[in-house]
């Protein structure tokens, strides 16, 4: 077990560094999975049992997030965010507990961490019924795929575009939209 953990840590560090170097593209979303070492329900809660694996987006540990650090501005609001790596680990926990759909949601979420708040809200609003044309939705899917490397989310939006077309849920499909 100990050896495996070290491997995982090494892989995590590599992925974090890689992620920082190639920002803003979300590169590390599926990192731990590809390393072959997976966490399971037995490692949960990760924030207690696997503190070694949980980092903030700027590479701090949970123990670094003290009141003192906040008051000195060495920990800022940005540090209190989840990383794609942590979401992938939680996806693995969910999967090992038999919850495949939750794992899928966590993996979509891992991809979305790279997208700024305002843009992600805009994308959500664009997915609401009668808000977008087919081409506008496809453009969002392309943006997800090309700009943010968010492949799962891109597929999700493409599928939505098809369904909206078939069910008349696009902008202009309703008199007032």
């Amino acid at each position, binding site marked *: 077990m100990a050896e495996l953990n070290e491997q995982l840590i090494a892989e995590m560090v590599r992925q974090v560094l890689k992620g920082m170097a190639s920002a803003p593209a979300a590169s590390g979303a599926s990192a731990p999975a590809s390393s072959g070492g997976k966490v399971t329900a037995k490692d949960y809660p990760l924030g207690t049992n696997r503190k070694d694996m949980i980092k903030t987006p700027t590479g701090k540990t949970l123990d670094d997030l003290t*009141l003192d650090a906040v008051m000195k501005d060495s920990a800022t609001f940005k540090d209190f965010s989840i990383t794609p790596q942590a979401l992938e680990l939680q996806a693995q926990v969910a999967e090992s507990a038999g919850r495949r759909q939750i794992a899928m949601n966590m993996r979509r979420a891992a991809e979305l961490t790279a997208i700024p708040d305002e843009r992600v809200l805009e994308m959500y609003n664009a997915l609401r019924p009668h808000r977008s044309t087919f081409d506008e939705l496809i453009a969002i899917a392309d943006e997800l795929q090309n700009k943010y490397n968010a492949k799962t989310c891109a597929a999700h939006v493409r599928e939505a575009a098809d369904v909206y077309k078939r069910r008349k849920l696009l902008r202009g499909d309703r008199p007032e939209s």
Partner: protein
Amino acid sequence: MAEKKRSKRFETLEQRPVHKDGFTGEWVDVGLIAMGSPNDPIPSIKIAGGKVVEMDGIKREDFNMNEQFVADYAIDLEMAPKAMAMSEKEIAHKLVDINVPRTECTKIMQGLTPAKIARVMDCLNIAEIILAMQKMRTRQTPGTQAHITSATDNPVMLVADAAEGALRGFTEMETTVAVVRYAPLNALSLLIGAQVGRPGTLTQCALEEAFELQIGMRGLTAYAETISVYGTENVFIDGDDTPWSKAFLASCYASRGLKMRFTSGTGSEVQMGAAEGKSMLYLEVLCIMITKGAGVQGLQNGSISCIGVPGAVPSGLRAIAAENLVTVALDMEVASGNDQTFSHSDLRRTARTMPQFFAGTDYIFSGYSGTPNYDNMFAGSNWDIEDQDDYLALQRDFKVDGGNRPVTEDETVAVRNRAARALQAVYEEFGFPPITDEEVEQATYANGSKDIKPRNVPEDLKAAEKLLKEGITGVDVVKALAKRGYNDIAEKVLMMLKQRVSGDYLQTSAWVTKDGYVWSAVNDPNEYAGPMTGYQLSPERWEEIKNIPWAVRPEDI
């Protein structure tokens, strides 16, 4: 015309509160029927090329958006042929049989179509639903949630009531608004008050979906719940979403490290005028499966704000208990309603809650009113703070853990005061309209907003706008508290923000202890398998429940 001579017996009965409730007959054509509408589809499934090509008699090309989403994401195709081949009665038997493990039941349930699940539920009577809930509940330890709202959106009352609610044992607390622009201030009051009353308590603010996410992103709330889904396409569109937009929204929440569950409930479709003649429970099963398919960890259901509709028709309360059961049987957290006024009759409203209370659910209430109902901005809960001693007595009478604990007047007054003081300091730090010492004093000892002087609403609303415009975050709240010497509260708000980094509370049915440890269905799975198994009251917890302060102690006589 001579007046008809009346029976005194019947005249007396007509004066009883139950006669103020609305009761209606079934009206099948518009779906005003709780379970088993003749218009409900007949269960079927056909799978070809790894896809569902027919579900419940509907061909894939004719699927509406809900049916397509459910068919593609919520059904386990490996399990489906075997599970669909079982009779409804056989599956119903397994749900109540203590010799069939919970995990086997959830696997079978995940192989079923919506119409099949609705029919399985129709095989169960209410006692069997209670038994099945006890076994199928996702997390082993039951819990409960409160509403904390104010008719005047009074921030000082909200912070004090949040502190008291947390002290009384609610593991989650939810606010909403009388005036929507007050929202950020209400969220702020709950964030601080909760951590004063019992650190670890999760808070949220129910609002329009996009705005709810925005204040979550700011770290002013820890979770979200009013993310509504609906069973028919037209009603879903009127709710301004689709399964795809809602699934995307679910991922948005997770991507910001925020816990969330969806909301649905029997009666919403017929209430919104587009149930297409289907039974309330069949449409609700679609909602539950959409939630499952979206990868959301849990669901608030049990009719919720439409309770007056199933509450008015035959077998309606049984359908409500059944929808809670379907949620957990599909392996999700359930926050099981009991959160909306439903009857003038104390007998009826108590009976409505007992199935969830006796069985125990992840959150027995998805909103026990932590204030008097006149302050409840969810239009009133089935139980309010003035019923709390009745509730504590019921826990004790039946030796049931309903999630609440007896508290003393002194400790309650103390946490209310401390919370109000802390908020006073934070308002001053942020340059918001001052909270006076008089307001602190009033909120400390108040029962409801009638006991506190009104605030200058337009000035408060400017502060709410400022909070949003200046981008004030949870970290700014931590700093403001610490600057004014409230370091212990600052530490606990910080502890809640740290939950967003590990994401442990994103797992199914999670709650947070006062030290920041996370329990969920992952490390506290329900292992009920008959008497003396599953959740058992610890001796300490039983002592706590026993010791209601107003009971006569034999040793004192």
